[in-house]
């Protein structure tokens, strides 16, 4: 256990070193919010991959595959393929036409104040949901690893303080490098784990897949069963399972390109071409990582076994327990500290995207009409709001407690990104007739539909037996009104319909000139924000 603590502290020391180095290079808005736009393509690619491979992927996906086999692997597929939307549709226009946030692109041809206010609200919602899920995960993980030394609340506060320190002092530059260090560690750990799994099966894929086809465990009724874990349908069962799977796919394919903490990354590179290359770098890393979840997840199912994992911390501990089974306590501590590093880096990335949106979109452009009253105000407001965001995240995570079911918060973040953010970004870039009312209604409908449908979904609504108590109980004790866990299949069309109807009902004249300007800027890079000197 002490090894875990030492490794945590080493990682924290490295990241604080990075923050100190970055703090001397973060003066000025472009430096603070966009790392002076001087991040290289491969560096940004690794950082994008790092932002994306959250604890939910590393710990969550291994757990889902370990317990539900093939159906869990389907998450892995969607997480990579989603980057084609980012590559083909979003990354380059965004870099060409924007400055710090996605709202910059919307504000070009629409009335900036209402659009930025709604976009900022949506960004803050996505970031906060995502962050709370990570914080609860971090607290639970640290408690499991260092249970005798650290309580859940202390762990949550520590994570919160660290993320505030990275963001307040180091800005985007520190956040990017923390992300890069973590992504390299995560890839190395995953590769090592994969090789060890194959070594366990004498480097024979035949032997490995034979084991996967015959996983023995005890089902809910306590009976011993043998299942083929390569067979689909262990998680997504009829009648609604297949539809839920499609809905999940929609949220991933259209949501990834609307995640604010991914989008802001494309402002940190010098130009659109570099943004494109960084997406390709990210796709290579993300794809390799998710292919390796085959070894992590199925390895945990076959070598450790669902029964053992259930008795030693539950699904999320699958990857660390696999490490322990294969190479003992030091490797267990190493993998656990990578998971911890992952959470820290991702919450920092979320915090900076939230604070950038608050200060750039809301404070400067909505409240003060786009004018900084004194030089440096925007950065100052961002730094102050990082404390606010941190405090809110710490508070809610402590309120929810370690046993809270927070997996749905990640689904919710993707659903909001897909249903609110993406439709208006797409309409703004591609639809000549689109106007302010359309953007505001699109964002509002997408946001409300996602939240509303999740509230009445099986994630929050179900009738629990009396044996289920405390935080594990569903919030609303009644049969779910909406049968799917993922609202995307309904909320994404609703977001688009909102954008369409709002546009059509408004008599606001559409500016052809402004549309032409955005069209030329986003497609050629003419007049795009240049990289600045440090």
């Amino acid at each position, binding site marked *: 256990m002490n090894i875990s603590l030492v490794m945590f502290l080493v990682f924290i020391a490295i990241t604080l070193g990075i923050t100190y180095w970055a703090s001397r290079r973060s003066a000025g808005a*472009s430096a603070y919010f966009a790392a002076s736009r001087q991040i290289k393509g491969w560096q940004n690619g690794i950082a994008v991959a790092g932002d994306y491979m959250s604890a939910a992927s590393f710990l969550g996906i291994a757990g889902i595959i370990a317990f539900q086999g093939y159906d869990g692997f389907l998450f892995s597929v969607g997480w990579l393929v989603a980057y084609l939307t980012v590559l083909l549709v979003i990354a380059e226009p965004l870099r060409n036409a924007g400055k710090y946030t996605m709202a910059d692109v919307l504000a070009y041809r629409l009335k900036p104040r209402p659009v930025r206010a709604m976009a900022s609200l949506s960004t803050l919602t996505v970031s906060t949901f995502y962050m709370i899920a990570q914080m609860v995960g971090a607290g639970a993980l640290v408690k499991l690893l260092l249970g005798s030394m650290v309580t859940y609340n202390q762990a949550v506060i520590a994570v919160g303080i660290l993320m505030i320190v990275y963001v307040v002092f180091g800005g985007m530059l520190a956040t990017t490098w923390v992300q890069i260090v973590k992504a390299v560690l995560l890839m190395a750990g995953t590769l090592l784990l994969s090789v060890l799994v194959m070594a366990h099966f004498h480097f024979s894929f035949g032997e490995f897949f034979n084991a996967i086809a015959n996983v023995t465990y005890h089902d809910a009724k306590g009976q011993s069963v043998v299942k083929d874990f390569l067979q689909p349908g262990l998680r*997504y069962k009829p009648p609604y399972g*297949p539809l839920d799977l*499609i809905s999940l796919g929609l949220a991933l394919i259209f949501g990834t390109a609307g995640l604010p903490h991914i989008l802001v990354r494309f402002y940190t590179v010098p130009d659109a071409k570099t943004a494109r290359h960084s997406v390709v770098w990210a796709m290579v890393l993300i794809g390799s990582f998710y292919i390796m979840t085959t070894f992590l997840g199925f390895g945990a199912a076959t070598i450790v076994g669902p029964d053992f994992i259930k008795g030693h911390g539950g699904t999320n501990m699958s990857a660390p327990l696999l490490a322990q089974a294969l190479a003992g306590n030091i490797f267990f501590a190493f993998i656990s500290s990578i998971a911890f590093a992952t959470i820290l880096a991702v919450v920092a990335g979320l915090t900076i995207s939230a604070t950038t949106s608050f200060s750039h979109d809301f404070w400067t452009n909505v409240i003060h009409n786009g004018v900084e009253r004194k030089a440096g105000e925007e950065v100052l407001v961002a730094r102050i709001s990082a404390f606010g965001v941190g405090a809110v995240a710490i508070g809610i995570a402590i309120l929810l407690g370690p046993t809270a079911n927070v997996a749905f918060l990640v689904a919710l973040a993707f659903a909001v990104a897909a249903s609110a953010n993406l439709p208006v970004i797409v309409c703004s870039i591609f639809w000549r007739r689109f106007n302010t009312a359309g953007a505001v209604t699109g964002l509002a409908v997408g946001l409300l539909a996602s939240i509303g449908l999740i509230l009445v979904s099986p994630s929050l609504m179900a009738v629990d037996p009396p044996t289920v108590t405390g935080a594990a109980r569903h919030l609303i004790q009644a049969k779910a009104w909406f049968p799917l866990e993922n609202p995307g299949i309904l909320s994404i069309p609703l977001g688009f319909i909102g954008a369409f109807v709002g546009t059509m009902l408004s008599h606001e004249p559409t500016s052809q000139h402004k549309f032409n*300007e955005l069209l030329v800027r986003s497609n050629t890079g003419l007049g795009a924000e240049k990289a600045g000197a440090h």
Partner: protein
Amino acid sequence: MGNTGRDLEVKAVQSQEPEQDTQSIWDRIAESQEFQDLMATKKMFIVPAFVFFVLYYFALPVLVGYAPHFMSTKVIGQVNLAYLFALSQFFVAWLIAWLYVKAASDFDRLSKDIIEKNGKGGK
């Protein structure tokens, strides 16, 4: 921000009345033949690529969800169709990304011509 020569940029970002427009350089570029060519070249790759990957991707949940028995057909040893199809998605995604990067060098060339013709920074 430090950079100079971006007055136009700042004005565009901060403009409070987007409806007050005048015929500008942007309109002229948008209507130019070079720009139309760029957009046509882009569309010719991006639209089919997007449609293909969306269809190929959603074939997976649809087949796995609605034809689980067919997808459980074993192909090599214990490895079934469902796993192979899922695995193929990774390579197809990489392939499309690679093809896009190749195609995008044409976009870059056409964009560069437009930028050079119309001056740096939109002036």
